[in-house]
């Protein structure tokens, strides 16, 4: 375990998630223990099927653990109703997806405003908060543009702005650079670095080592379990993967 921050944001205790497929039981998460403090920058890595997406869904309150305990900001989420979980997602969690998930008919501003519709915010406060957060991600001059008038990087920035607009406790990014070229990816990752410096807790799910390199802590998963959990400077995988990356051209 790494050093603990003063305030715990996430605490997972023996969390399992079991899917029933026919008569078979698939252990997508098989006893996860994890603690995450304020202002951490974590990368979750693993091959497909390792359970990292399931972990992401559980952390994001989109899915419930089959057993175990998940505390978010000191509150046990396992016994909460669907409506309460919706509110938690709205107030505490910001999602960034691989394929941006912007609504094509709405402007960047309206897209960013969307989560605020589901919380109690007046028109003006919605407008101002969305505008501010768009400025924060560097899109202050594109607020009226619709997604199809924006580049891939800009779209992802809008999506990040949308995730940040409710001041979430954690920012959950699922392969945020998966649909972007390497130059744009670096821009997005720089933005994550900037947000981290500003105090945001960030969890990035990725299978690309160079993305994980930006994080201060890397969790490797395999078969639904945490296989290694190390701060960046102690991760032995780094140097070798860096060399591997250099040999194998990224797609």
């Amino acid at each position, binding site marked *: 375990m790494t050093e603990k921050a003063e305030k715990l944001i996430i605490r997972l205790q023996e969390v399992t998630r079991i899917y029933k497929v026919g008569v078979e039981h698939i252990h997508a998460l098989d006893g996860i223990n994890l603690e995450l403090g304020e202002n951490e920058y974590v990368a979750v890595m693993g091959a497909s099927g390792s359970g990292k997406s399931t972990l992401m869904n559980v952390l994001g309150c989109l899915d419930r653990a089959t057993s175990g305990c998940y505390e978010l900001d000191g509150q046990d989420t396992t016994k909460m109703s669907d409506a309460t979980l919706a509110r938690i997602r709205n107030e505490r969690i910001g999602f960034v997806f691989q394929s941006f998930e912007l609504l094509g008919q709405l402007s960047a501003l309206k897209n960013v405003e969307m989560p605020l519709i*589901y919380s109690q915010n007046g028109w003006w406060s919605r407008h101002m908060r969305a505008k501010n957060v768009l400025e924060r991600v560097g899109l202050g001059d594109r607020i009226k543009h619709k997604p199809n008038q924006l580049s891939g990087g800009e779209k992802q920035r809008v999506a990040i702005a949308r995730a940040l607009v409710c001041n979430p406790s954690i920012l959950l990014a699922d392969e945020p650079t998966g649909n972007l070229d390497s130059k744009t990816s670096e821009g997005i990752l720089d933005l994550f670095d900037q947000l981290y410096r500003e105090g945001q807790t960030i969890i990035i799910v990725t299978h690309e080592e160079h993305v994980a390199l930006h994080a201060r802590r890397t969790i490797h998963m395999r078969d639904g379990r945490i296989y290694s959990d190390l701060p960046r400077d102690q991760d032995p995988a780094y140097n070798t993967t860096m060399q591997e990356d250099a040999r194998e051209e990224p797609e």
Partner: protein
Amino acid sequence: MRAIIRMLAAFLRLFYQSVYLALGQIWTNKTRSILTTIGIVIGVASVTAVIAALTGLKAKVLNQVESFGTNTIFIFPTQPDKGPMRHASWWTIRFLPEHFDDILEHCPSVERFSRIAGVGRYTAHYREKSAENVEVMGIEPAYHEIQNRPVSLGRKISVIDNMQVRPVCLIDPKLRDELRLDRDCIGQTIRIGHHTFRIVGVIERQPELQLGESGQERYEVFIPFRTTFKMGKPWIMAFAASKGTEVTEEAQAEISFFLRRTRNIKPGEPDTFRVESVKRFMDTFNSIALMVTLVAGGVVGISLLVGGVGIMNIMLVSVSERTREIGLRKAVGAKKSAILTQFLIEAVVLCFIGGLVGVGIGQCLTMIISGINPVLDMVYIPAWAILLSFSFAGSVGIFFGMFPAIKAARLDPIEALRHE
């Protein structure tokens, strides 16, 4: 209290947002939306047109009846439904003038009374001019009040005219013009059939309720009741006016009772005449109008049902097309109820737009109908019909939008976000 207001405000915001989104969605899928709402449009257009036409007709008829006076009673001979008189000839059951003698003394609810004698249609001549289709009717003075037919020039048929069997007449203005009589034609004489009459007045024409039959012009000439007997054997009936609308039924009963006695109808035998009131006529008309409305309503109900199924179908398509959007909305904190509201409102907005277009088309149809048929003046769809169609369209939207909306609300956000 504050909490309630906050909740209400939140709901209104969600509502506004949903309407905004729904309109956007409808705008992006224009063709689809138009095709979907056609059922609703046709339903609403037809019901509003039918209701508007009926309302116009009803207003017209009521107007007409009011010009008669609502306490008017018509008395005419007719064969009964059963009994030996069932197949009696018209001549046997005809009224005789003396059947009505002293009727006012015996019927306390009757205010006025006038016998009417119809002698058929004649040709009227004045110098070289002639007019066909002149309906000659013998009347008594009370006729003017009962039928609300004042004279615009000259005088009415008087009691003296009747007593002395004078050869005088009232003519209608159209006949005056047709025969090229002077504008002030009082004192001029015209020939009707083989008889000569002196004109004593010009009677106002009745506002006419012409349903189709327009071809030949019809003229009216009124002569004293007793004078008709000089022209031939008149067909007699009678008009009466009760002392008020509320005693009309009593007046009818009194007249029936009186006539049974004067016509020697034995107890148990059916009447050989009818005593009808305008009120009953109105009741019949109203029930027919109601029936037409109900039939139209049924047809419209079916059409709205079909329209509703169309709405449901398109909403299901919309839900499956926007699965990812639903997933995203849920991920950023939309509750089930919010998703439900959004899709429900989309369906309702679609139906309302259909209703709006339908009312517009209905009004156009109504204008076309009133253009073709001169009986109806400019008619408008009554407000209640518009309200009714809208609430109906709205209910259809809620009813048929519910299933797709529930389907959307129950989507699992993880699955929805993975949807291709």
